[in-house]
């Protein structure tokens, strides 16, 4: 009886602490997303149509992949301003190698991504080893890599990609067979259930507190509802988009890397207490360099998806709002600018918010000016929430 009461109290405390520590950072953004959807749907009944949602699910992928990379850098409390330029540069490297020099597509893709990795290693080196602030290094990168991109393009302002090629297929292919979307939904739900169930069994075997079967069933039910709902909607249009599938696999895979491996644990540790991490023998220089490598590599991958969407790479690749949208996506989704808090799923949710606003505005025929202002407002709100949470937590921790 009293044991149970303590448990409940402990549980309530966990929830409260998680709230204040930003682990439930996804609750406000999910609510915000639902609100945005309701508003746009009430203004234009095409907003939640399968066609629009399907397009939305492909439009988020390019910028979303870049945002996922930025999450790594934000987690160690730094920033990467070069990702827009690097994504454009990567797309152009691919286009020049494949289209102008006849290199095989798969090889050109690999070379482009490795270029991104190399760029990240160099930028990370200057930051972590030489000690130049990341802001400055990547600002130099922002200019430098777009300069190199223009140089590579030379007189040809635009390079058109092969319409039928591998990269074009990334965003043009849909799994028309309804079984694929449902199969993926079933697989996702099953993996979620089995992971939770195994964790519970393992904990029970060692006599530790664990989730009740009812809670696991409920959570699995919610997950299942969301993914089967999404599969149903996508099947109403053209089926599961290949791009969305890749995006989800990458987000889930990198989430596993960040939250379930020693490497990921060190990334969070460096963001939450670099000195503490150093004293227990974490090589913080290596961790810091690695996150910039991930960020730049993901920037190129995202850049290839953006190029795929318009089947070309040009002088405008990676320019405009791309950088800001990618950073905003991560922050809106709940990644702290102060380091140590957030996941790759934050980037997924954040880019959904941004792209939903963009898509809704386009449907309503509202000018870009208004769209910028609204997205800016959402970003400001997210950063303010983040700052307030951090301050409250600091005050609490010192108490």
């Amino acid at each position, binding site marked *: 009886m009293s044991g149970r009461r303590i448990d409940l109290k402990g549980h309530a405390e966990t929830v409260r602490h998680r709230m204040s520590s930003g682990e439930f950072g996804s609750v406000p953004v999910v609510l915000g997303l639902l609100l945005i959807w309701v508003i746009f749907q009430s203004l234009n009944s095409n907003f939640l149509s399968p066609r629009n949602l399907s397009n939305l699910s492909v439009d988020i992928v390019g910028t979303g992949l870049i945002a996922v990379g930025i999450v790594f850098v934000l987690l160690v409390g730094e920033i990467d301003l070069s990702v827009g330029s690097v994504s454009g540069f990567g797309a152009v490297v691919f286009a020049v190698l494949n289209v102008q020099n006849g290199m095989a597509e798969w090889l050109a893709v690999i070379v482009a991504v490795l270029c991104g990795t190399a760029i990240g290693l160099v930028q990370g080196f200057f930051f972590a080893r030489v000690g130049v602030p990341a802001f400055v290094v990547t600002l130099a990168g922002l200019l430098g890599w777009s300069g190199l991109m223009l140089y590579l393009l030379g007189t040809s302002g635009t390079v058109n990609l092969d319409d039928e090629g591998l990269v074009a297929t990334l965003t043009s292919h849909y799994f028309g067979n309804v079984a694929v979307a449902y199969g993926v939904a079933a697989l996702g739900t099953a993996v979620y259930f089995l992971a939770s169930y195994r964790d519970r069994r393992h904990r029970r075997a060692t006599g530790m507190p664990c989730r009740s079967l009812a809670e696991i069933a409920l959570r699995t039910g919610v997950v299942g509802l969301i993914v089967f709902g999404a599969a149903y909607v996508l099947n109403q249009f053209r089926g599961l988009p290949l791009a969305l599938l890749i995006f989800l696999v990458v987000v889930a895979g990198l989430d596993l890397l960040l939250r379930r491996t020693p490497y990921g644990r060190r990334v*969070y540790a460096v963001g939450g207490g670099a000195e503490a991490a150093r004293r227990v023998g974490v090589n913080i220089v290596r961790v810091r360099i690695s996150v910039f490598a991930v960020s730049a590599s993901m920037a190129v991958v995202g850049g290839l998806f953006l190029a795929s969407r318009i089947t070309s790479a040009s002088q405008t690749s990676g320019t405009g709002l791309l950088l800001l949208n990618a950073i905003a996506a991560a922050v809106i989704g709940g990644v702290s600018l102060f*380091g140590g808090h957030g996941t790759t799923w934050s980037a997924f949710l954040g880019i959904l918010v941004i792209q939903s606003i963009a898509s809704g505005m386009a449907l309503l025929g509202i000018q870009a000016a208004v769209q910028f202002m609204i997205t800016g407002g959402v970003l400001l709100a997210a950063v303010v929430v983040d700052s307030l949470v951090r301050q409250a937590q*600091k005050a609490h*921790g010192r108490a």
Partner: protein
Amino acid sequence: MAVPPLLALRGVSKHFGAVQALADVDLTIRAGEVVALMGDNGAGKSTLVKVIAGVSLADRGVVEWQGEPVHVRRPRDATDLGIATVYQDLALCDNLDVVGNLFLGREIRRIGILDEVEMERRTRDLLSTLAIRIPNVRVPVAALSGGQRQTVAIARSLLGDPRVVLLDEPTASLGVQQTAQVLDLVERMRDHGLGVLLISHNMGDVKAVADLAAVLRLGRNNGLFDVNTTSHEQIIASITGATGDAVTRRTPRPGEAER
């Protein structure tokens, strides 16, 4: 007598530029014994801890481990010998939970994936062995009180089964109740047969748990006292450099001034 002390320092010296932080310091720590290291601000206490822990190198002097001279050049060397250190500024990652902090840098993994269940089980075992009460080992340590954070930092140092633990001012920023928590923990460590070096400014803490008080003054040994048979005043006089008489006269404490 036949058993050599766990740790003995002889003639350890260290300077920073013109500042002689440590000069010919001797110190001995035995198993099952709490030695308090006392001294004014800047007396060299933290510097001594860093030398023992391998964080900084002494200019001169010998470190003996169980009677054998050893070279401690890196933190790893000290850890490998069985010396654990809890620094003055607690080095915890605020965003990680208790389990994450305890196992940071030595995570248990299965096929490359963190074995959270096993790490949590060992955390609970360790905390219950030490009778440390943390309501939930899965909350980020930022949410814990100062005393709880300190006990987490100490628990982490015990995870590698050390023989000697160095605690640099573990109670400096704690309230009365939280200080008691930490001192209880120090006593349990002694009962488990560990040698403990406890740096403290607080006579009350020292009287409560220490067996011996070693005093540093301006980087030099300035007395080694048996805490149970020595008065507050004598130790304080040795810390401040005043003569024992002057201090005794200024703060008379009947019944304790017999020495």
